């Protein structure tokens, strides 16, 4: 599940984590669609998902550890997604934000989201980058 800035996509180092976005998923800070389809589309999808912020905590879904895996066949992306809680009130927002971000790209036609619960999400899944961002926001993370 290696991913990250190898695709020419604008990497949002730090920017995404400024609590400036007032729009669901941080979509006011999403990058412009790529003019040319990337060579490494798998990594590009991970980078795109790095731009999608959790609706309640302004860090990306990837850094929050909610994206368990993704697959790409032709122009069809399949995202394996979990949630922090079984009754997360933002489930619909998160799904919509993922779909909207990915479908902005001309090289993606279809997004399929599979809801998964195995392994159960815990704080341990938050990346070090996510923890650092949360610390800057005054939120400590145990584990």
């Amino acid at each position, binding site marked *: 599940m290696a991913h990250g800035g190898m695709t020419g996509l604008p990497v949002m180092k730090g920017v995404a984590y400024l609590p400036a976005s007032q729009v669901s998923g941080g979509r006011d800070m999403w990058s412009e669609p790529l003019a040319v389809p990337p060579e490494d589309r798998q990594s590009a999808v991970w980078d795109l998902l790095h731009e999608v912020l959790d609706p309640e905590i302004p860090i990306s879904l990837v850094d929050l550890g909610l994206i368990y895996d993704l697959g790409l066949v032709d122009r069809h992306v399949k995202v394996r997604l979990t949630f922090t809680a079984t*009754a997360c009130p933002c489930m619909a927002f998160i799904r919509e934000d993922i779909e909207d971000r990915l479908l902005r790209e001309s090289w993606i036609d279809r997004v399929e989201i599979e809801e*998964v619960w195995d392994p159960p999400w815990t704080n341990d899944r938050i990346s070090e980058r996510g923890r650092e961002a949360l610390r800057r926001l005054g939120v400590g993370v145990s584990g």
Partner: protein
Amino acid sequence: MSGGTVETAADLPPEAREALRRLVIALADAKRLMGIRYSDWLLGAPSIETGIAASSMAQDEWGHARLLYAMLKAFDMDPVQVEHERPSDEYCSPDALDRPFEDWAEVVAGCVVIDGAISACLRSFAGGSYEPARSRVPKMLAEEEFHWDMAAAWYHRLANASEEARTLLRDATLEMLPSTLAWMAPDDSAANVLSDAGLTDSPGAIRSSFEAVVGPVLAELEVDLSTAEARSEGWDASRGRGPGGPDDDAIERARGDRNRMLFVE
């Protein structure tokens, strides 16, 4: 339990499939009703913090119900119909959730006894061979750990408070136990079919699991779980519970009757 994994209910023989369907509905209904009973105490709990805890627990229970109702698709059932259109006498929730909790002692007893029983069933289900349960239920059990912490703490607190508190809590516990034991570990063929198929533990093992967790807490009020008897008069084998069903108000809320015209899913 026997080895091997059951990927889908369609792989099961008819009798085991039907028993599994009953179990899934029973657990889903239990979660839905448990959430409703907790939600009654968002206001009126002994402290603001406790009311917030009740709110969080209600939210968890409804999340669990959602996942469990969704599992009914594997039985060619429509989860929306099951959730929003059934009458009370088709619910498979524990009898002890048929009416609201009257006071905080009943809430605490319910959290220990009924929620504890539901969790014992879930532990057994998660450890069985049915893959959809193995992959979904552990998250529910992780969330239930917080319910249990609150339940055990409050039970201890009330058990060591006034004599009146002890009496209320003990009475509530003894009232809930017999029917809840019958619901949790039914002495019927469906329960045995499930364990024979490796989908759950045996009813006896489920009860032992319940006793190991809940027994030490109830012992504070000299309630001996090892000798507590299940009550199964009027047993309805099709639902895995006693006769009757939840009160009208709870059913209307569970189904979302008031906002039916605004329903979107």
